[in-house]
């Protein structure tokens, strides 16, 4: 039974990509500005929870190998947008999506897309660290095992922990429970778990909001490094964080509108809309 389950998505994931882009550039070179391509694109995207509209006609292009931040007050729909990208909203019964969300040019809401296959290429890190109640090693190996990528498992686990800047702290206690780690270490473990399977995109939903300042700054440094290899989309409440680590910023405001989207420095230095300026300067939010 489990064989069938893992094989179906495999074939679907091949279908998922319609454009002919090379994805084996694991060296982590930063592409020139001119070559930046769009990985995720939303077109007129609406999301409803029951009768409530959470996102209104969102048009957004997320560039490859950069950090794109989503900011805005609580309830503005920024997390909803993030969860649309890997179809985690499917798990909420009352959620309904209209419009298009393209990943590598393919609408992920097409009937022939298997969300399981999609999520294997778009990793996610959640607001609260959520390691499995298993050993540190098994946490990182988990995704590799369910995706049948178990060749050189030890090596891949080690590499993922190194890329998540956690290896030196845990290399002597890989067999210990992940729950014995500190909050910041747990979150880096969750990042290691997400990148171990080599996704193209990493979605982060306020990954540092439950952490202390030191752990937060470690996570921020890590995110900037990750953007050399992955496309990172991060939702944050913390505007300074968005300003520090992101290349692009999308500002959502209450009611699920995307008010402004552009290069981070431009948005923070010279926002076009007055509402965005008020929000960024802390008049509300």
């Amino acid at each position: 039974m489990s064989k069938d389950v893992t094989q179906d998505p495999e074939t679907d994931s091949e279908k998922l990509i319609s454009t002919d882009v090379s994805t084996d550039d694991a060296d982590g070179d930063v592409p020139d500005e001119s070559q930046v391509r769009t990985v995720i694109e939303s077109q007129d995207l609406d999301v409803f929870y029951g009768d409530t509209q959470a996102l209104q006609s969102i048009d957004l292009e997320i560039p490859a190998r950069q950090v794109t931040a989503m900011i805005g007050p609580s309830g503005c729909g920024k997390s909803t947008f993030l969860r649309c990208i890997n179809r985690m909203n499917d798990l909420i019964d009352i959620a309904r999506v209209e419009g298009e969300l393209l990943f590598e040019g393919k609408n992920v809401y097409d009937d022939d897309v298997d969300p399981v296959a999609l999520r294997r290429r778009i990793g996610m890190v959640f607001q609260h660290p959520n390691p499995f109640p298993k050993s540190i090693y098994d946490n990182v190996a988990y995704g590799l095992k369910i995706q049948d990528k178990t060749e050189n498992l030890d090596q891949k686990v080690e590499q993922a922990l190194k890329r998540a800047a956690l290896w030196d702290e845990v290399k002597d206690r890989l067999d210990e429970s992940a729950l014995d780690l500190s909050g910041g270490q747990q979150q880096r473990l969750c990042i290691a778990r997400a990148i171990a399977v080599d996704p193209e995109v990493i979605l982060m939903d306020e990954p540092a909001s439950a952490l202390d300042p030191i752990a937060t700054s470690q996570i921020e440094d890590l995110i900037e490094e990750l953007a050399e290899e992955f496309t990172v989309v991060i939702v944050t409440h913390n505007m300074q964080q968005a300003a520090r680590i992101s290349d692009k910023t999308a500002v959502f405001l209450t009611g699920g509108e995307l008010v402004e989207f552009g290069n981070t420095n431009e948005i923070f230095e010279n926002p076009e809309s007055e509402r965005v300026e008020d929000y960024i300067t802390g008049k509300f939010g």
Partner: protein
Amino acid sequence: MSDEAQTPDLSGGRGFQTVRERLYHALFFVCALLSVLTTLAIVIALLTEALGFFAEVPVLDFLTGTRWSPTIRPVEYGVLPLVFGTVMVTLGAAALALPVGLLTAIYLSEYASPRVRSILKPALEVLAGIPTVVYGFLGLVYLTPALSVIFPSISTFNILSGSIIVGIMIIPMVSSISEDAMSSVPDSLRNASYGLGATKFEVSTTVVVPSAVSGIVSSFILAISRAIGETMAVVIIVGAQANLPEASSIGGLPFVSPTSLFDQFLEPGMTMTVAIVNLAVGDIATQSLAYQSLFAIGLTLFAITLIMNLISDLVAQRYREEY
């Protein structure tokens, strides 16, 4: 504000409140004590009478004796046939109820829509509420005749029917307690797994079940204990004939071939609980040896369930995945 600083009155009607709190404390303590004392009283009662029994019948003879005949001469008190009957009924019941109950729990917790769950859960609880005597005669009247189609040699009273009926009886226990344990696994863990591209089946088997394993094991042990202690359905379906399969001796050790073991499922048997019922409703004199043997079986049952509970604690601790 006056110049003299007045300390605020923070006593809060202290005298009365303190007395009330102490009363509550005492009330709760007495209730807690009640069950402990009851347990102690039971153990003491079992031990005293059983000790009287073991003064007459050596413990070893009791535990290794292969014939149970407390009232018919030649009188013998070998508990092995009773243990055998209990183990057979329990094993059969567990073989049915543990997998079915666990899969039911996974379905209810992970797959069923809220609407389906709202129908299925109460239905399962009704199953648990049916009096065991009803299960007993349904087994005798319907199940055993149905089984005789497949196994023509089956006796009117037989262990197989008893196993199946007891198994059905304990399914709700397994599924309900396991489902509670799985439902309390936080969604954040499911999301982590879905986020890595796991299917629902993988989320259920690699995250939810391992995280809920202590609750699942507890449900197994409780259900097995219930099967061991089940009496009414068993006396009706399995009968009251203390049987032990023929054992040949291999290298000095008793050996029972698997086929003769399976044949025993089609035969009547007698569990420890049924033996107690038989003695208790019969006309035996108090303080007689037969009367005291009741307590010896009671003590054996108690010891078995105690060991089961200890094992379950060990297993739960060993495989605990806390979240």
